[in-house]
């Protein structure tokens, strides 16, 4: 086979590389994107978060399967529906040697609304805080404005920074909406390029940040969780897939995230190890429900997607197995839900079968025996193989008579056009950052409503008031078992109505030298702190 001829000389290249890796105390990682800032409160962006988590920590953590576990808070309890008491961990040091106390937490949460020019602010988390007081240095009471069962989960997103290093006064007093007192002069995002300001409690300290080139962190010897694995970690953004793989194969980096699926056999043959895990990201199709949906032809001005039979026909026309196998190289799992079971709120619903015959019947029943034409929108640089999948879906829909053209653009144009409702049907993805069914339901299928803040990403404008009511109830239920059941019901309502069509769950892949190990994360983050030497 031709593959062989290319692979054999490759092994020689790797030999050279492994010789270079003499200092085993250093880890070098190739990331697919670059952090936009070292300020952990500046921009909610996965790259910033995964890089920042090495330097900064939060009250809670999420483990590899997004289960909430203690972080800087040892334990917590819900005193009533809106009051939480957090016991903070004792003996935790910041990188500058100062002690971690409740004051740092209050300062950190207070700083969030004061960050200027943020393109995606963390105020979506701090906005819900009504009151915050320290009972003592290591006990914190937080009152939320509404009942929020996900509060401990959300806290993972709020990084704790050092009040001393940032120049806070002795007494920091909380008040909502950026009205805190005792904050001093609050340093802005650019200041965090300096290790003197970017002071956290994490296992690694910031050493240097050369934009576009590399970010270096070094071991924090006094880390509360034990001595970190690496003396030094270098994170390099290598945004193109090919060069990122080449950098791993050539030995320039030890581990890369998201190697392209088609390169995996080659990477494995070259003696590298590959790990993968199902992610919380669902790839789905959303169909527009308004009367005047654009981009539909051959229906005399009607919108066929308003008919649930047509939506079901589309779902049945798609051979999800074929997409997972042929396009995703087996690194995807056909989806029947909006979040992979057994995550919170899933019901274990069956994946829709591939049944083009039944799909044609449904189309005929709905009054479209000859099909119609449709314009399918998709980004081409956002999800794994996104435009390839969209083309495959278009192929499959064409086979039941729905002539589909694919309108693929870069994510920047796609998101703007989608939000302007320019597509009758579009493909996109959703990763539930809370690891909980309420996340996709609230954003993707709940009725679009500016006052409640629901349905923000529901650009099909699907609306099911019964489901909305049930979801709202679930969102204010603290009892996990009850909430789980309600979310399952709400999801089933939507899926029975084909309000959204799940395609598959992405599988996230990492490739690394064989002497390393990494526990793959559901949330797709690459965290240097969790890379270990293989036993």
């Amino acid at each position, binding site marked *: 086979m031709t593959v062989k001829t*290319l692979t054999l*000389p*490759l092994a*020689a*290249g*790797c*030999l*050279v*590389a492994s010789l270079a890796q003499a200092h085993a105390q250093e880890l070098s990682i190739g990331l697919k994107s670059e952090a*936009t*800032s070292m300020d952990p409160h*500046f*921009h*909610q*962006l996965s790259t910033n978060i995964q890089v920042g988590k090495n330097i900064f920590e939060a009250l809670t953590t999420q483990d590899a399967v997004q289960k909430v576990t203690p972080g800087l808070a040892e334990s917590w309890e819900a005193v009533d529906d809106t009051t939480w008491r957090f016991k903070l961990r004792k003996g935790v040091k910041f990188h500058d040697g100062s002690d971690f106390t409740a004051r740092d937490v209050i300062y950190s949460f207070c700083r969030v609304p004061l960050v*200027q*020019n*943020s*393109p*995606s*602010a963390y*105020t*979506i988390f701090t*906005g819900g805080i009504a009151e915050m007081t320290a009972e003592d240095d290591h006990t914190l009471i937080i009152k939320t404005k509404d009942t929020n069962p996900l509060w401990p989960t959300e806290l993972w997103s709020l990084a704790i920074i050092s009040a001393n290093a940032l120049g806070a006064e002795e007494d920091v007093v909380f008040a909502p909406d950026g009205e805190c007192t005792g904050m001093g002069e609050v340093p802005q*995002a*650019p200041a965090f390029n300096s290790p003197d300001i970017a002071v956290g409690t994490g296992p690694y300290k910031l050493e240097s940040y*050369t*934009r*576009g*080139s*590399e970010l270096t962190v070094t071991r924090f010897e006094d880390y509360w969780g034990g001595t970190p694995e690496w003396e030094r970690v270098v994170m390099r*953004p*290598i*945004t*193109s897939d*090919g*060069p990122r793989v*080449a*950098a791993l*194969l*050539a*030995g*320039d980096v030890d581990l890369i995230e998201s190697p392209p699926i088609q390169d995996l056999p080659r990477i494995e043959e070259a003696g590298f190890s590959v790990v993968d895990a199902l992610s919380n990201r669902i790839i789905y199709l959303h169909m527009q429900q308004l009367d005047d949906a654009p981009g539909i032809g051959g229906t005399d001005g009607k919108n066929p997607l308003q008919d649930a039979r047509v939506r079901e026909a589309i779902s049945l026309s798609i051979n999800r197995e074929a997409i997972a196998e042929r396009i995703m190289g087996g690194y995807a799992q056909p989806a029947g839900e909006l979040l992979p079971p057994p995550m919170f709120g899933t019901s274990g619903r069956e994946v829709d079968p591939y049944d083009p015959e039944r799909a044609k019947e449904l189309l005929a029943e709905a009054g479209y025996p000859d099909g119609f034409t449709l314009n399918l929108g998709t980004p081409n*640089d956002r999800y794994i193989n996104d435009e390839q999948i969209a083309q495959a879906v278009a192929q499959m829909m064409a086979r039941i008579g729905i002539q589909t053209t694919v309108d693929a653009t*870069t*994510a*920047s*144009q796609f*998101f*703007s056009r989608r*939000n302007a409702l320019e597509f009758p049907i579009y493909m996109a993805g*959703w990763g539930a*950052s809370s690891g909980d069914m309420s*996340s996709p339901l609230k*954003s993707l299928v709940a009725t679009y409503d*500016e006052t409640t*803040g*629901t349905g*923000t*990403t529901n650009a099909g404008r699907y609306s099911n008031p019964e489901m909305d009511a049930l979801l709202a109830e679930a969102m204010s239920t603290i009892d996990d078992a009850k909430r789980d059941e309600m979310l399952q019901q709400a999801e089933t309502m939507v899926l029975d109505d084909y309000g959204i069509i799940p395609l598959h769950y992405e599988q996230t892949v990492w490739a690394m030298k064989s002497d390393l190990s990494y526990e793959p994360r559901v949330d797709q983050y690459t965290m240097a702190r969790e890379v270990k030497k293989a036993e």
Partner: protein
Amino acid sequence: MLVYLVRRLGQSLLAIVAMAVLVFAGVYAIGNPVDVLINPEATQAEIAATMQRLGLDRPLYEQFGIFVMNALQGDLGTSFVYGRPALAIIMERLPATMELALVALFLSVAIGIPLGVWAGLRPDSIAGRTIMGGSILGFSLPNFWQGMLLILVFAVLLGWLPAGGRGETTEFLGLQVSFLTWDGLTHLILPAINLALFKMSLIIRLARANTREVSLQDYVKFARAKGLSGRRVVMVHILKNIMIPVVTIIGLELGSMVAFAIVTETVFAWPGMGKLLIDSINLLDRPVIVAYLMLTVLIIVSINLLVDVIYSLLDPRIRLSEMKG
């Protein structure tokens, strides 16, 4: 001379303003950066707040007015993505791009001129034909494809050179450069060759064509007939006569190299400003796009001006005031 300079600067200013307007309106038309930048879980109220924070809720003409006012004071805006002055972000990336472009330019001149002169002196020899054939190939290979083949061969199959990135840098004249360290140099070789090949072919062809023309001229034939050695003829007459077009092309091509670096930087993950431009376009980071283009225009205009001045020094018959802008 002064009139000429003033006129040139006026034109350039006009070009910069025209482009700023175009890009401003264009990026506005593509989409809303907040749609790309914001966490999708944000509510409509938070989206509106973010737009307000970035000044995107104002009408376009107002945004442009604010931009112009600030630009006149030397502030080209704050990047939506990085939250820092756009110009500062670009200046951080400028040395990497300039280093790449200058090294590539050096390679194409140092290799291109001798090969071209040789091919021009012996147009029908095997060497001459091989050089021309090679230059046609170098001319024809799509830059990105050629870059990938270079990586495949030299980084992956042979393992001689790194596949991408910039490597170790040291400070030189206050700038971070990579050609002074071994690690930096190895990272520089492939991207520089990739960027140089096209220009090298261009210079080979140019040098050959000029050499042929000059060598057919009477005074060169005469010099040869007089028994001057072949080498001396080449050195003195031909090189002197091809310097003007070569300087022109070098000047003009340096500007286009800075632009073409976009492709090379994408393929080799070279942290220059071309890659920054692509990223900024994808994120609709308008301040960075506008600042990049203004800076590039400035660089190109200055180089052109410089070329014209050198031109007049090389050939006293040309007076700047007579030249068209």
